[in-house]
C-alpha cells in the first residue's frame, strides 16, 4: 500500500497563482502608500475571498451546469483558502484578539482554516488505505451491509440449525460475536493498520472449531466468512470516517463564520460611519 499521490501543480498553474498573489500584494501596498487603511482593504479582500470560498459548496450542488469541473473549483478553493489565511494575518495585524466577539471570529477562522488544511491532507492520504479491500462500499452502504451480515448470521444460529443446537457456540455467538457484528468496532485499530482485530477473530473461531461436528462445519465456515466480511466493513468504515469526518467541523463552521463575518462587517461599517 502506497501513500496517495500528491500531484504537483503544473508550471502554468503555479504561475497563475503567483500572479494573483502579486496582484493582491500590489493592492495592499498601494493602499499603504496612499496612506489608506490596510486593515480595511485587507478586510474587503478577505470578505471577497470568503464569499468565493463559499461558492465552492454551491458549485457542488449543480454538477449538471457547464461551469467547469468541480475538481478545478476545488483547486481554486484551496488556493483561495491559503490566500485568505495570509489576508487574515494582514487584516488582524497578527495581534491576539480582544473581546468575546473578536475572539470568536479569530478562533472560528483559525479552526476553519485548520480543518480545511487537515481535510486536504486526509483526502490525499486516505484513498489507498480506504480502497485496499474488496468490494468497495460507500459510507452510507456500510450500516445496511452490516445489518445484512447480522441477519444472515442470525439465520445460521437459529435453535434448530446445526450451529444453534450447540450450546457452546450459541453462547459464543450471543455474548461475543453478535454484539461485535452489530456495529462498527475497533475503529482505531483499523486506522493504525493493526492486525489485532483479524487475529482475535481468527483465534475465536479456531477455539470454537473443536466444538463443531462434521454436520455443522459448513455453516461454521459460512459464519466465519460473514465475520471476516464484517471485519472489512469495519476497516472501510474507519477510513471513511477519517476521510470525511473533518467535514463535520468544516461545513458547520463555514455557516457560523459567514454569519459572524456579516455581523462584523455591519458593526465595523456602522462604527466607521459614526466616526465620520
Amino acid at each position, binding site marked *: 500500500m*502506497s501513500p*496517495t*499521490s500528491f*500531484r504537483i501543480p503544473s508550471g502554468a498553474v503555479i504561475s497563475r497563482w503567483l500572479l494573483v498573489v502579486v496582484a493582491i500584494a500590489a493592492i495592499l501596498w498601494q493602499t499603504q502608500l496612499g496612506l489608506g487603511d490596510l486593515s480595511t482593504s485587507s478586510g474587503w479582500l478577505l470578505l471577497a475571498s470568503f464569499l468565493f470560498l463559499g461558492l465552492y459548496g454551491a458549485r*457542488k*450542488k*449543480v*454538477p*449538471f*451546469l*457547464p*461551469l467547469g*469541473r*468541480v*475538481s478545478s*473549483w*476545488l483547486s481554486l478553493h484551496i488556493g483561495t483558502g491559503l490566500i485568505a489565511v495570509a489576508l487574515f494575518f494582514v487584516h488582524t495585524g497578527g495581534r491576539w484578539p480582544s473581546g468575546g466577539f473578536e475572539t470568536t471570529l479569530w478562533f472560528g477562522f483559525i479552526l476553519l482554516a485548520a480543518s480545511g488544511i487537515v481535510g486536504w491532507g486526509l*483526502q490525499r492520504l*486516505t*484513498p*489507498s488505505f*480506504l*480502497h485496499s479491500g*474488496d*468490494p*468497495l462500499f*460507500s*459510507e*452510507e452502504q456500510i450500516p445496511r451491509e452490516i445489518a445484512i451480515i447480522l441477519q444472515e448470521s442470525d439465520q445460521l444460529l437459529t435453535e434448530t440449525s446445526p450451529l444453534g443446537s450447540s450450546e457452546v457456540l450459541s453462547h459464543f455467538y450471543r455474548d461475543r460475536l453478535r454484539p461485535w457484528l452489530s456495529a462498527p468496532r475497533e475503529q482505531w485499530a483499523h486506522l493504525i493498520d493493526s492486525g489485532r482485530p483479524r487475529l482475535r477473530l481468527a483465534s475465536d473461531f479456531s477455539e470454537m472449531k473443536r466444538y463443531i461436528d462434521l454436520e455443522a462445519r459448513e455453516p461454521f465456515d459460512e459464519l466465519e466468512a460473514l465475520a471476516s466480511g464484517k471485519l472489512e466493513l469495519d476497516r472501510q468504515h474507519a*477510513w*471513511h470516517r477519517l*476521510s*470525511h469526518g473533518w467535514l463535520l467541523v468544516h461545513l458547520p463552521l463555514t455557516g457560523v463564520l459567514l454569519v459572524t463575518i456579516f455581523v462584523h462587517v455591519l458593526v465595523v461599517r456602522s462604527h466607521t460611519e459614526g466616526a465620520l
Partner: protein
Amino acid sequence: MSPVEIERPRRWDQPFGDRPLSDEWVEKALQQPSMNCIVPEAFPARLPLADLMRHDARLIEAREGNLIVRQGDYGDSVFVLCTGRLLVVVDPEGELGYRHKQDSRKLSWLGAIAQLWRNSSFAEKRSIADPISETGSLTKDGGDSRISLDDRKEFIGRGLPADIQAGEMVGEIAALRRSARTATLVAAEDCQLVEIRWQGIRDLMRFTPDLKHRIEELFRSRGRAHLIEQSPIFSDVPEKLLTAAVKASRFEIHGNEAWNKGLRKWMGDDEGTVSAREETVIEAGDLLDGVRVIVSGFAARITIAAGPAQQTLGYTRPGDLFGLDEIIDSAANGTPALARTSLRAIGTLDLMVIPTDNFLTQIAPYLDEKKLDEQRISRTWSGNLSQGMLDFLVDQRTINGTSAMLIDLDRCTGCDDCVKACAVTHDNNPRFLRRGYRHAHLLVANACMHCVDPVCLVGCPTGAIHRTRTTGVVVIDDLTCIGCGVCVEACPYDSIRTVEIRDQGGNLVVDAKTGAPIVKATKCDLCLGQPAGPACQNACPHDALNRIDFGNPRSLVDWISG
C-alpha cells in the same frame, strides 16, 4: 401504499412506426426481389410473419432530394426500396456539407436547475399513462431525418453517388455491425421505402436462411468497400485507384460474433487463458501477402511472443492498417515481408487484404506519412501504463468503451459525489454504482461504456435499447422496455440493472395477472440532454473519475499520469 396493477408490457405494444404497417404495404414489401425469399410458413405461430412486419417495419414516403439516412449517424434498421431510386453518397471528410450533426435536445440552465426540486422523493417513479400516445415512435430522439438536400445536383455532378434501385435493400452494414451509417442515402426521385428495425431483421434472418445469406452477401459486396472508402487514411488516394485496389482485395472474417457469451465467467482468468480464446489472424513471422485493413470490429489485439506468453503491445480500431511497415521495408530491401507482430481477433473482425503489388502501386504513394505515424503511435502505446494494466484493459474488453468510467482509487476519497450527481440528474436514481472490476489502483466502474460494439442491443425484442441517431450514445427507451432482462444478460460489463417501478404516487407497479412487480432496465445514459454532459465526471472533486474513449488511448495515459 397499495400496488398498482397494469398489464405486463409486451414486445409489440409499441410499433416501429406511428401506427402498424398496413397489410397492403406488408405484402408489397415482401414482394420486392430482395425480400421474396421470405415465406410465412417458416415462421412459428408465436411470431407470425405478418405481425412481425406490421410492428417492426414502417413506411417512409420521401420526396426527391430528401435525406433518408446521413453518413455517420447511428441506426440499425434496413430499408427496402419499393418505388423510386436512391443515391448512395460516400463522403468521409464531410466536404459536401450534409454531414452536420444534430445535438440532442438539451435542458436549459433553468430547466436543469429545476431538477433540484422537481426530483422525486421515491425511487424509480414512472408515468404509467398510455405509453403509446406519449412516445409516438421509437425515433423520437432522432426525429425525422427527411431533410431536403438543396445541393443534390452538385454532388451528382461530382460523380460520387451509386444508385439503389426499386426492389433492392440497403442499410445492412449498420444493422449487421452495430456501427454508424457508412454512407448517406438521398432520394433521387419520389420514393416509398419500408424500413425494418433490427429486431425484425434479426427474426426475418433467423427463420429465412436465404435472406440471411442475401444480406451477408450485400455486406460483402458493397458494405466493406464503403467502410474502406470512408477511412481518413485513404482520403488522399484517388477514387479510381482506391476502387481498383478494393476490387483486387480479398475479404476475411475472423473471430466470434457472440464474443460476449461467457466473457463474465472467464474475466479475471490469467492472460494465457484469455488470449487463447482469441483467434490468431496473423502470427509473427508469417509471410504477408498484402496489407490488412481493419474494416470493422471493435478491436484486434497486437501481440508479440514473450517467453511462453503473448505480450500485448496495443490494439487496432477500424480503419487501421496491419503489416504496412513490413511490406514497405520488404519492397525497399528486397527481403520477404514477414509479420513482426501477431494479430488476434477480439469479437468479430472484418479485414480487407490489399495485395502487396496493388498496395505498393495504387495506394502507398498517396498515404499521408503524418496520419500513418499518428496511427502507429496511438495503436502501440506504452506511455506510463504498466504492461499489466494494458493486459487488463484488453483482457477485460474495456477497450470496447467509447466512454468507459474509470476511477483512480489512489485519488478517490469515497465521497460519492459522483453517485449523488448522477442521482440528481436522474430523478434521484443513480444510474451506476461505484463498483466494478479493478487492476491495481484503477477501477472500471459498472457504468455503461457506450461501446463501439454494443452487444446489449442484439437481443432486445423491442428495440428499447438503442443508439441515439446522432451521438451514438446507447440509451434505453423506458416506455418501450418490457423488462425482459435480455440486455442485462448480454452486457458483459454488468452495466445494466432492472429496477422495480413505482407510479406517480409511489405505489409499486405490478402485473395485473401475476402480481409480480413490473421492472424496467436502466443504465447510464451519459447524461444525454444535460447541459454539461456526464455529471459524474464533472462532480468529482479529486479528478478521480474520468470517462475514457479507448479509440484515443492517449487520453487515458495523460489522465493516469496527470
